[in-house]
């Protein structure tokens, strides 16, 4: 597997048997991107992903806004994982500005982050279901996701774009009685997603369809620099919550789910196992959280970074490691802000996995990469 990989799409000779299909951007199986697929009969000869249809220049926009007003903008790429996408930015700004976060706020952040990871994964799972032609698997996650959206709404006051994390903590304290409601709904949520195994994860048709398709070996997963569920499905035990614990993750018992197969079934099962793990983490965090206390350190209205300084923070988001590289030149705006997102890093595996695959495997392999086009385009 260490031979020279095809450089993107460089078809020297186009046979007349080969048909070029534009999958996307207006296609039910592509999301906001285009995959140029060349097929020979039923087999994909080459594949060239063409993202950028939803590129909006978040990084450029961030250079014109101060550290606080960047918050509603930076969560836009992944609105249903908005807490996680803000997390590294907020951690980075805290280091740049030099403030500490109260203990309770750290727990609230962990809960919000885990809830958001579940919300994102449910959405991802719904789309994965519809990509495989399983309409029930679209409707159930889309409905059960509502339980957690309801929690997030109680917590932050918005259903998707929360804008909840700020440097120095979170925007507001938990509403009264939140712990009980959260525990009840999370327990029910866990019960619900366990039921998915009967119709989805243990379904023999699904297993036959996704097992042994798009196999990414451990070496390739490391070499291609994939992250998140793609990496863990290939047998690499790497979870930033465990390896580089931020906030209070080191006080919680986090279990990392790893599968050895590296096929699209494993890649699709890891997020589901992660959701079950998230439920555990939420329960632990609810138990260990200080019952009262401040949740936000007060900050000057326009915080400034210290001199010419750079910081690189990363967290484990729903799609894998999400890094934020902030360069500050002592002004109220960041000099340069770069989001290193899991989707973009996983995209590199797509041409590699799809080559020689059947056309029918294209949606399942593509979506099992846990790829979110909007986030990759930023």
């Amino acid at each position, binding site marked *: 597997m260490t031979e020279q990989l*095809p450089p993107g799409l460089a078809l020297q000779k186009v046979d007349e048997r080969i048909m070029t299909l534009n999958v996307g951007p207006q296609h039910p199986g592509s999301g906001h991107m285009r995959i140029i697929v060349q097929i020979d009969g039923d087999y994909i000869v080459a594949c060239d992903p063409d993202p950028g249809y939803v590129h909006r220049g978040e990084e450029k926009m961030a250079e014109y806004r101060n550290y606080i007003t960047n918050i509603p903008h930076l969560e836009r790429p992944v609105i249903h994982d908005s807490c996680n996408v803000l997390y590294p930015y907020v951690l980075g700004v805290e280091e740049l500005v030099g403030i500490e976060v109260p203990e309770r706020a750290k727990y609230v952040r962990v809960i919000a982050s885990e809830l958001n990871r579940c919300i994102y994964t449910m959405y991802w799972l719904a789309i994965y279901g519809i990509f495989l032609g399983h309409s029930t698997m679209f409707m159930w996650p889309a409905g059960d996701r509502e339980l957690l959206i309801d929690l997030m709404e109680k917590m932050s006051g918005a259903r998707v774009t929360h804008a909840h994390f700020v440097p120095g903590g979170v925007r507001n304290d938990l509403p009264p009685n939140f712990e009980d409601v959260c525990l009840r709904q999370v327990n029910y949520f866990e019960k619900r997603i366990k039921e998915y195994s009967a119709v989805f994860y243990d379904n023999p048709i699904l297993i036959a369809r996704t097992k042994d398709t798009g196999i990414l070996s451990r070496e390739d997963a490391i070499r291609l620099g994939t992250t998140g569920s793609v990496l863990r499905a290939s047998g690499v035990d790497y979870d930033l919550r465990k390896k580089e614990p931020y906030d209070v993750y080191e006080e919680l018992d986090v279990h990392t789910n790893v599968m050895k197969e590296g096929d699209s079934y494993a890649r699709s099962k890891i997020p589901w196992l992660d959701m079950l793990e998230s439920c555990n983490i939420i329960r632990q965090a609810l138990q260990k959280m200080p019952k009262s206390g401040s949740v936000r350190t007060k900050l000057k209205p326009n915080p400034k970074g210290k001199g010419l300084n750079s910081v690189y923070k990363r967290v484990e988001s729903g799609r894998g490691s999400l890094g934020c590289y902030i360069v500050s030149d002592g002004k109220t705006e960041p000099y340069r802000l770069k989001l290193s997102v899991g989707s973009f890093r996983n995209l590199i595996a797509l041409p590699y996995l799809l080559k020689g695959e059947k056309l029918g495997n294209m949606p399942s392999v593509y979506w099992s990469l846990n790829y979110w086009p909007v986030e990759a385009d930023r």
Partner: protein
Amino acid sequence: MADAAFLALTVITIGSAIAALELRSLIYGSIALMGTLGGIAGFFFLLDAPFVALFQLAVYVGSIAVLILFTVMLVKRELIFKKIEDKRRKFAGIGLMLTIMVSLGAVFIDSGIKTMTTDEPATNFRDIGTDFVTYYWPALILMGLILAGSVTGALVLAKREDVENDQRVN
């Protein structure tokens, strides 16, 4: 009623047979060929041979026509609509056709089958099945061998031989 059906079927069959050979597009030609085959099936119905008629529909229209259609679609589009023929050859062919039609027709009309009619009941289709396994059983085995040989031969013929050069483009 039966006469009208006979006339209609004659027109359909012969007309679509000509169309199958003469239409410019091969796809339309295949559709016309399906018309011919269906028309022959209609004649079989009129001849009280529904088993043969439905066999014709299921096998000829249902599978042979599909195969022909599929093969035609595999051919390049320019070729589907291309017409390769010679004017003089065509007129000679029409002459040949008319000669055969007239001479054979005259022979048949003059012969004794002109007055041949029947009022006997039609053959039951179960007799065919009985015939297969009793009187014609060697033919049935032979038939099996022919079919087996044809599918084997067709598969061996149709497979690609330039796999190493073509399949892996890179």
